[in-house]
């Protein structure tokens, strides 16, 4: 029966049965209890619901669950439990890249995708990558400082 979707979520296989047009976002938050992925707008503008689908950053509010069948999904919970998270998370906090936190999981997901393809992105590359993650608190400057500190390996003053 095709109204069942089976996918790998943060490394383990999960099965969803129900409306195949259910938003991946709702499946993650409600069926899977993974509330680190946030809904900010529900139309793919704010990026708060960003997840990695087959390694590509996407808005989970715009992915019907039927399309992740047989695919690999990584959420903030999965990313935060691996070895690469610590340094990025720490530097985001330390450099003022985190204020209210509502955009933060999505920002982390996008930055992980960016760093995967470019371990030392320029400021311009970070700005372009983050254009789909709206932040209303930081003015983005703290996030940019954090990535610069991470890839430059420098302690800020």
């Amino acid at each position, binding site marked *: 029966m*095709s109204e069942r979707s089976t996918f790998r979520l943060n490394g383990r296989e999960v099965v969803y049965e129900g409306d195949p047009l259910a938003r991946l976002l709702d499946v993650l938050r409600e069926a899977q209890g993974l509330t680190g992925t946030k809904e900010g707008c529900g139309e793919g503008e704010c990026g708060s619901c960003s997840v990695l689908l087959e390694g590509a*950053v996407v808005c989970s*509010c715009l992915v*019907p669950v039927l399309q992740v069948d047989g695919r690999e999904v990584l959420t903030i919970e999965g990313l935060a439990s691996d070895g690469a998270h610590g340094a990025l998370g720490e530097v985001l906090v330390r450099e003022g890249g985190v204020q209210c936190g509502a955009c933060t999981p999505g920002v982390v997901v996008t930055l992980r995708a960016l760093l995967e393809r470019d371990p030392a992105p320029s400021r311009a590359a970070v700005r372009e*990558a983050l254009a*789909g993650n709206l932040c209303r608190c930081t003015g983005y400057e703290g996030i940019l400082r954090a990535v610069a500190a991470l890839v430059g390996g420098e302690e800020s003053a």
Partner: protein
Amino acid sequence: MTRAFRPTDLAEALRLLADVDLGARPIAGCTDLLVSKTAVGWSPAAVVDLLRLEELRGVRREGERIDVGAAVTFAELRADPLVRQHLPILAEAAATVGAWQVQNRATLGGNLANASPAGDSLPVLAALGAELQLATADGERRVAYDDFHLAYRRTALLPGELIVRVRLPVPAPDAVGAFKKVGTRAASAISKVVVAFAARAGGGVLREVRLAAGSVAPTPLRLRAAERVLEGSAPDATAADAASSAARGAVQPIDDVRSTAAYREWVLGRVVRRMVLEVGEARTRAGTAAG
């Protein structure tokens, strides 16, 4: 509840879509669809996922054409070596569609089928003379992009018909082109006006001029009066001004949530004019360098 189908070959997908009783609708990147689904509770009897169809994937060169799969995403388009080399204005347009998250999902075929007058890639397809390869369970046909968007949000697609490939002529060595999107902000913006221009400029005069604009009419629009003005002209200030006037005269933009009719008409003229002038300047510079 909606039934979901995830065919892995085109024939199977077309068969499903041909089944009137099934009432299936095709879906791809879903970047517009799921917004409206949330807004209006869209719930068709069945959906057919197109993202697993190899026939709709990939960019390849076939003779004097670049052949782009309808399910190629804008992220793939903007990064594709063939597109960047031969169709730089298509790569440029792809880079302005939404932000990274949307570019990873939205497809060229989806932009076509969705048929928004603001679709960023559509004026480029018009300017580059794209031809669409369409298919139903009964067979294939080819339709020029110019004949595809019939009216506001209406296309030439028949019931059960899919866009399979988009075929674009490889431009001649003396080809010139330009793309400009005037959006609501620097990124992740919907266009207020979007313009694409392609021509041959050998010998100091413009030939085979194709100029198209989006968000200025119910469908993406070829600016044929402006093309006629430019055809056979040198890309100089006189031609630029004449093309600008002709472009402005050919559109009926509206006031809407993103912009005003007056601004749209003005900025269309400014953009067309600048595109022509820049082609002229580039030719002059090239001539100087060569001479």
